[in-house]
């Protein structure tokens, strides 16, 4: 859910520990049994679709065959699958593509919600602002299938742009199948779908800036741009730093359905990323252990990056995705 995951686990300052904390565990169990019962459905779902699959990653260390051996009898082959990954040009391409897309979007997507928030915040009429906000948040609620379908109708070979160009005697365009411009296409799609929603967190930060600061600066002779430079941007700095760090921690995730949906149209050369590689190498070609190794590699490196990003966030005095205690 993008930016909003930030800082989520809120720890209330009061930590409402009841005074009789030192109960023996049996008494505690009896006291809290209805709470445990309430937890049970969630626990079962998390066990079934998170913990057991997470442990099922042992198949990444096996020559896994679901028909002859299953997870119990398939032979253990240690790190062979991982070693093979690094000789697989397609895997290396997935890694390069993922990292270049992250880097590209850090430059060309990341600032867009900030600028949008500044623009929205500067709309003076409250009613107009609410309308524009309502419009720009909307695409966030569309599915990727829908967004791809809409882009195809606009920029595809038979799309609106090609149609208008042809009417005027030019040649048509098809951006949906052009692998050279794919990175521009997906970034445009991401901006169209998510930038409005991404602006919310910056709008929240903008609304916490003390208006008296602006007045004081204006009285001191600072005009609009200087006020923005010296008050607004410093006011946004903590959020920007935090989101930047978190984005780096999330560097291996560039979106999944977006790439799955467009892989066949532009070819795997430009569109292969970690997640699509896991799907195609594992489920499509049937080498499940190999695909699981790729997935596990991504999961563990991602985990390390998040932990590192949080260390950095804490060093900046921010709370990060999680905080200690």
């Amino acid at each position, binding site marked *: 859910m993008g930016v909003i*995951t*930030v*800082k*989520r*686990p*809120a720890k*209330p300052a*009061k930590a*409402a*520990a009841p005074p009789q904390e030192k109960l023996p565990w049996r008494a*505690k169990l009896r006291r*809290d049994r*209805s*709470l*445990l019962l*309430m*937890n049970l*459905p*969630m626990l079962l*779902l*998390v066990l079934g*679709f*998170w913990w057991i*699959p997470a442990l*099922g990653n042992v198949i990444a260390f096996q020559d896994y065959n679901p028909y002859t051996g299953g997870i119990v009898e398939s032979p253990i082959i240690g790190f062979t699958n991982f070693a093979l990954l690094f000789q697989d040009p397609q895997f290396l391409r997935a890694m390069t593509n993922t990292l270049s897309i992250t880097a590209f979007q850090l430059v060309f997507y990341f600032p867009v919600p900030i600028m949008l928030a*500044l*623009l929205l*915040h*500067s*709309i*003076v009429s409250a009613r*107009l602002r609410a309308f524009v906000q*309502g419009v*720009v948040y*909307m695409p966030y*609620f*569309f*599915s990727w*299938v*829908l967004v791809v*379908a809409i882009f195809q*109708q606009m920029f595809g070979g038979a*799309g*609106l742009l090609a149609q208008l160009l*042809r*009417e005027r005697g030019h040649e048509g365009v098809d951006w949906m199948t052009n692998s050279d411009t794919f990175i521009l296409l997906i970034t445009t799609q991401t901006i*169209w779908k998510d930038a409005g929603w991404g602006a*919310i967190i910056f709008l929240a930060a903008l*609304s916490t800036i003390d208006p008296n600061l*602006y*007045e004081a600066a*204006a009285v001191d002779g600072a005009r609009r741009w200087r006020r923005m430079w010296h008050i607004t941007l410093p006011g946004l700095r903590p959020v920007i730093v935090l989101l930047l760090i978190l984005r780096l921690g999330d560097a291996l995730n560039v979106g999944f359905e977006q790439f799955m*949906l467009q892989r066949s149209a532009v070819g795997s050369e430009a569109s292969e990323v970690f997640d699509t590689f896991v799907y195609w190498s594992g*489920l499509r070609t049937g080498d*499940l252990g190999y695909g699981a190794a790729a997935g*596990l590699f*991504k999961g563990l490196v*991602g985990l390390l990056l998040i932990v590192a990003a949080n260390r950095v966030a804490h060093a900046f005095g921010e709370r990060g*995705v*999680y905080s200690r205690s």
Partner: protein
Amino acid sequence: MTWALTKPGASRKPANLAPWEERPSPIGRLSKGTLVTLIVLAVLGPLYTIVLTSLSSAATVNRAGGLVLVPEGITFEAYQQIFSDTVVSRAVLVSTGVTLAGTLISTGVSILGAYSLSRPGSFLHRPLLFSILLMFVFFPGIIPVYLMVSGLGLKDSYWSLILPTAVSAFNVVVLRSFFMNIPGEVLDSARIDGAGEWRILWRIVLPMSKAVTAVVAMFYAVGYWNAWFNAMLYIDDTRKWPLALILRQYVVDSNPLPAATAGVTGDAPPTLAIKMAIVVIAVVPALIIYPLVQRHFTKGVIVGAIKG
């Protein structure tokens, strides 16, 4: 691009600007207005032409050579065609059913789970909380989850579209932090009056949490309605396809529909109008729910959630 830093809520009339504020220059206002208009058009423009095309007759679409920009009479032919045929109508039913059931299950499970985790110091509180928070930082991987789902025999079952994504750690944590902000005295006094946890949750906590529950339910509903990959992975039986798969197959890839149906691929209204009508059908639920919950976005829930 100029973003005048006016105080929110201040009126556009110069007389109502704060005394220290400059009047925005005409150029600044003009360029800001243009920019805002372009942004709004970038979102609404595609939607406009798609809706219009879905409502146009074959002749109009042919004359336009594709998507229709100028209306020439409205017809519901494409929609009649779609709903007189079983493939798309069944997919709409499947998507609706999965969305309703999934939202109900997810929201219920999350409320119970979040409430049970809202009491630090309770039995096993930390390990249970930890197991949810871990979901933020690690994903077990597509393949193990796939093996689990097929191992449970859920392939080609609607449950495969619900259970694997039923718990969102994010939503649980949003609910939990909201529950934890309910003053302890309120709950304590209920407890002294002899109310059990179920009663407290149902009678006190939930009525105080209507807005956050609505937003969480909406996130789940949008997720279920939009989900494509799980259906692609788990549902082979074309009769059980949700709308997202139809959208991919027929609209994006322009492949004929499974068990293709005279109605949909027939010639009367052009395929493009039918395609666009399917797009519209996929968008509409989001557009209906969205305004109902939108007012909670900026004030209250989401912003409160961000500030922690």
